[in-house]
């Protein structure tokens, strides 16, 4: 599946809705599209360990030099940081929004001047660890920060995983919403 991210060029922010079963696949599609457009992508992961995503991306031929990670779940789930992950930033817990905010700020500072995009995977998983009101505030903080530094951002969420109030709030923070399951386009054409 190819994603219409034409607005990314104007430093736009998107809320990308996906079905739960296709979340990982859509993550991959977004990464492929962004790296293909020459973006440096910062993946904030709370659903899968960064090590697993790295292997997945590498297996799919993604240029890994363009992808970096802020991993909120590995250290919390496994109690340690796996070896060979020195290029990742690990957060102690997905609910530690202070550390996550600091890590995002630091990463964005290092990427200033570069064509970068932040991929947040996913809001739905973060909801396991944080009440919806705090999520909304945090996403507002991130989107404001991204606008200030002129960086693009994509927030992945499970389409039926957000209540109407939270969805409305998130929609107001971003420039556009993409429903991955409503806009299927043949990816193969682009790949080929």
């Amino acid at each position, binding site marked *: 599946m190819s994603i219409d991210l034409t607005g990314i060029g104007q430093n736009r922010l998107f809320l990308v809705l996906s079905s*739960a*079963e296709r*979340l*990982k696949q859509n993550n991959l599609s977004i990464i492929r599209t962004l790296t293909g457009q020459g973006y440096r992508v910062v993946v904030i992961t709370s*659903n*899968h*360990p960064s*090590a*697993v995503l790295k*292997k997945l991306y590498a297996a799919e031929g993604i240029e890994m030099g363009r992808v970096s990670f802020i991993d909120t*779940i*590995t250290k*919390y*789930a*496994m109690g340690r940081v*796996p070896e060979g992950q020195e290029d990742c930033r690990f957060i102690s817990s997905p609910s530690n929004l202070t550390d996550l905010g600091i890590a995002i700020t630091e990463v964005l500072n290092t990427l200033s001047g570069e064509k970068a995009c932040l991929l947040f995977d996913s809001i*739905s*998983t973060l*909801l*396991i*660890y944080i*009440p*919806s009101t705090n999520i909304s505030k945090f996403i507002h903080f991130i989107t404001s920060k991204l606008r200030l530094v002129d960086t693009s951002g994509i927030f992945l969420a*499970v389409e*039926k*995983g*957000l*209540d109407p*109030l*939270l969805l409305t709030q998130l929609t107001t923070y971003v420039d556009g919403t993409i429903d991955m399951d409503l806009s299927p386009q043949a990816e193969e054409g682009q790949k080929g």
Partner: protein
Amino acid sequence: MESVNPVTVEREGGSSDPSGEALPGATHQIWILGLLGAICIALEIGVHLFLRTAIGYTHIFYVLLVLAGVWYYQKALVVAAALVAATFLTSGIVGDFTWATLLRAAMFLVVTWIVAKISEERDRAKAEILDQKAAIEEKHSALVGYLAEVALRMKNPIHLLRDNMAAIRLQLESEDPDLEAVKMDLSVQITHADQIMANFRELNQAIVEERDEIPLAYRDFLTR
């Protein structure tokens, strides 16, 4: 001060003025009572003092006393006492102070006290009903919030967890599964499941603390 029959409030779902009667505001009430008071004093002077007639005109006084009792409860006794004093004074001047004068004065006070008491009781009951209604609405709102939060922080995450587990199984079924990656992914999913259970306990705790009617044994069970 509104005058609303609480039975009507209950039957009609508690609208602010279910009886449909237009009730005067505090300023209008003062003006109405002042005007009626002036009329009563004028009658007392005109009819009793000058025409020397002590019967009939005092019926008008009850309009003032009833309205004062409905709107200002026991404070209306001050108005009744003032009318009693005016009656006694004119009776003294005219010289027709009899047992009928005393009975009339007593009726002013008794009728005023009864109307005041009934009005006070009725408005207290109405306030109680409105409070109960507000409490029910608050609980209903909390219940809707609880259900929304349950869906947001449990039902949908469990769906996500299920799909992640299905993906892990697919990975295991592949020809050359990366067991290290599978182990890591499983650890993450277990952590998600732990957190979902913690969320459930936390939400139950919040509900249990709100509801006094839940027996102790069930409180313990729900928050275990």
